[in-house]
Structures are given as structure tokens and as C-alpha cells.
């Protein structure tokens, strides 16, 4: 009883906080900038989604196969090196990669795509690697014992069992990417980050909120959507029982 009361109190406080936030936003007409510049908003949104989609797609196309290659028996001895490099890469902030790319490639859409792509590779690669590595070796042994060919082991045993981890990696990467894309404005990539930075620079809350709120909603929605996809795609037996 007492515990439920605490839970409900927490939930109610969160909902009230959200409600207060939206009341504050609307009573100050902070979304007016969005309404008045709706055409521009759509352009920025499209740019944003393009950047995210393109860089994420490239990252998946590179990261998943390379993780698969690295986990093949032939390459097993490089595994330690690769993991170390990936872990180091993870400690480098996305802003640093964006900035570095800009320093090298200059300003523009291409720079943004490349920088976002590089940053998205890591979570996907790391999760695919971890997912495949964590497949029980007895499982693989018994598949071999039943006469599975190497590619059958990969597609019938390893990938389905690693699916949860792989998709979780993609989800993480895409969600981070949505946020990182907001920074792409700085290197001339466009997107909704535009309004946030302009808003900060000219101290205009309306421009600021009109940029920040849609990005937040975009990130939360995409995350939710990918979670649903996760449920659909991953075989029930291969899902972890706890979070």
C-alpha cells in the first residue's frame, strides 16, 4: 500500500510538472515562432530527418557487417584490439567528432553526414559485437554438430539470438543521432538545431522553444517506435527477461 502511494506520488508530480511546463509554454506563446514560420519549420524538419536517415543508414550498412566479419573465426585474434579501439572511440564526445570533421572537411551538408555517420557507427558496431559474442557457445557447437554450414550458423543461430542487442544498438545510435544532428547547424548541415542556436544567440525564448520542443518530441517518438519494432522483430525467446 505505502509503496504504491510513493509510486503514484512520483507519477503525479511528473505529470503535473509536464502540465505546468506546457501551460508555461502556451501562456508565454513560445510556440508562436513555429506557427508563424511553419513553412521554414517543415524545411528544417525535412533536413533534420534526411541527415539522421542518411547517416544512420550508412552507419548500419557499415557497422553490422564489420561486426559480423570481426566475429568470424578467422579474425578472432583481432577481437581484443577492435574492442579496445571501439571502447576508446566511445569516450570521444560527438561534438568533438563534428568539430574535427569540420576542421578537416570544412562546412556543409556532406561534412555533417560524414560526422554523424562516424559517430553512429560505434554504438551499432559495439552492440552487434556484444550480441554475437554473447551467443552461448554451446548453441553454436550444437548447431555445428547438427551439420549447420557457417552461413547457416550466422543467419539461423547467431543473428536471431543477437537481434535484441543489435536493434538496441541501432535504437541508441538513431536517438543519439537525432540529438547530434541538432548540432549539425554549427557545421552548416541545417536541421532543427538552427532555431535553437539562433534562439540562444538572440535570447529569444520563442525561437529556442520552437526548435527544442520538436526535436525532443522527435527523439522520444522515434525511440518509442524503434522499441515497438524491437518487440516485433526479436524472437520472444531471445529477449532478455530483465531490462
Amino acid at each position: 500500500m505505502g509503496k504504491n502511494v510513493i509510486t503514484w506520488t512520483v507519477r503525479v508530480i511528473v505529470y503535473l510538472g509536464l502540465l505546468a511546463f506546457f501551460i508555461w509554454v502556451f501562456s508565454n506563446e513560445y510556440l508562436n515562432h513555429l506557427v508563424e514560420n511553419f513553412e521554414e519549420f517543415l524545411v528544417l524538419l525535412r533536413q533534420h530527418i534526411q541527415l539522421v536517415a542518411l547517416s544512420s543508414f550508412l552507419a548500419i550498412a557499415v557497422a553490422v557487417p564489420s561486426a559480423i566479419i570481426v566475429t568470424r573465426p578467422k579474425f578472432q585474434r583481432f577481437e581484443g584490439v577492435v574492442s579496445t579501439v571501439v571502447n576508446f572511440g566511445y569516450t570521444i564526445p560527438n561534438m568533438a567528432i563534428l568539430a574535427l570533421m569540420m576542421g578537416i572537411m570544412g562546412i556543409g551538408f556532406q561534412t555533417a553526414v560524414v560526422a554523424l555517420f562516424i559517430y553512429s557507427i560505434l554504438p551499432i558496431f559495439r552492440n552487434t559485437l556484444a550480441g554475437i559474442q554473447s551467443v552461448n557457445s554451446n548453441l553454436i557447437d550444437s548447431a555445428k554438430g547438427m551439420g549447420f554450414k557457417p552461413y547457416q550458423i550466422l543467419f539461423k543461430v547467431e543473428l536471431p539470438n543477437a537481434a535484441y542487442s543489435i536493434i538496441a544498438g541501432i535504437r541508441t545510435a538513431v536517438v543519439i543521432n537525432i540529438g547530434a544532428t541538432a548540432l549539425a547547424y554549427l557545421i552548416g548541415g541545417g536541421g532543427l538545431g538552427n532555431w535553437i542556436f539562433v534562439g540562444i544567440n538572440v535570447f529569444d525564448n520563442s525561437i529556442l522553444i520552437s526548435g527544442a520542443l520538436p526535436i525532443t518530441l522527435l527523439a522520444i517518438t522515434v525511440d518509442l517506435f524503434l522499441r515497438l519494432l524491437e518487440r516485433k522483430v526479436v524472437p520472444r525467446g531471445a529477449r532478455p527477461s530483465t531490462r
Partner: protein
Amino acid sequence: MGNSESTFWRVIDYFQNNIDWILELTVEHVVLVGSAIIVAILIGVPLGIYLTTNEQLASTVLNIAGVIMTIPSIALFGIMVPIFAVINQGIGFVPAFVALILYSQLPIIRNTYTAIHNVNPQIRDAAYGVGMNTWQRLFKVEIPNTIPVIMAGIRTAVVLNIGIGVIAAFIGAGGLGILISQGITRGYHEMIISGAIAISILGITADLFLRFLQRLLTPKGIS
């Protein structure tokens, strides 16, 4: 690629000429991230432990922390600046500090909660069986045995925060992000690259330091 070669030397030059300032910014960065992490640990670890006694609240809190985590950092700053402007703290240390604490909660709470929750039931049983009270069980058995997992959560939070701290420079919180924000405004590539390198070095150093600390704190019997 003669151009990139000379860029390399110009970056080295930039470092040499501005080393004092860069160190100053590094200290600022470390203070921002460090103070936020300390507060985040003081909130997150006890909360994570408490949540193991209240499953329902646990899933609520973890969901909330998960949603906060998906909010892009620059967007969160964008929302917090006007909110904190209400108390005249719109630009500067405070919104950055609060945002960093919020972002740290998910990895810290989740790892603490999961680790304590998953303590081998037989070991917990033995702790009850030898007559430990709740606090003794927590401090003599459960926490020592979960240090690696809790520390991993803290490490994730620190690395994450060092990155977000960079973006905080755009809302006037100082730190190494200054090199990048000013570099971009001035179109000064060497400054930007120096910033990127300094931040990467800071991230890697912090991670190494925390790994070392983790090894130091982990009781020897746990492999």
C-alpha cells in the same frame, strides 16, 4: 595532402601558444562535470538501492530516466535556459549543472538497481543467515559485490557528461567547448581541432582513471 600536414603543425602550434588557457578551460570542464557527477551519485546510488525494495516505483523511475536520456542535450539546454531565466540563471553554470545531473541518472540508477537486484540470492541468504542487519548486509555484502557494475554506470555517466559539457559552452557554462564554439564563430580551424583533441584526451583520461579507480575499489575476490 600537404594541406592537412600543415594543418597538423598549425594545431600543434596553437596548443603550444595557448596551453595555459586550454588548461584553464580543462579545469572548468572538470569542475562542471565533476560536481554534477558527485551530486548525481549522491542521488542515483541511494535511489537505485531503494528501488530494489519497490518494484513498481523502479519501473516508473527507470522509464522517466530513460525518457530524459532520449532528450537531445542541446534541446534540453534549449528548454532549460528559458526555465532558469525565470530565476535569472538562464545562461551559465546552473542549467548546465542541472542538465548533467539529469543525464547521469539513468546509467547510475539503472546499474545500481540492476546490480543490487541481481546479487546472487544465495549470498544474500547467507548474509541474512549469519544475522546481518539491513545496513550490514548492504555495506558488507551487497555493495562490495556490485562495485564493478555500479562503477560502470558511473563511468558511462562521466563520459557522457564530458561530451554534453562541451555543448554546455554554447549556453555560457564555460569549459573546453569554448574552443569549439568560438572556433566556429571565428572560423578558426586550428582552435576547433585543438578543442576536439583536448576533449577527446579528457574523455579517454577520465575513462582510464575511472577504470583504475574501479579496479582499486573492487574487492579482490570478485573477478
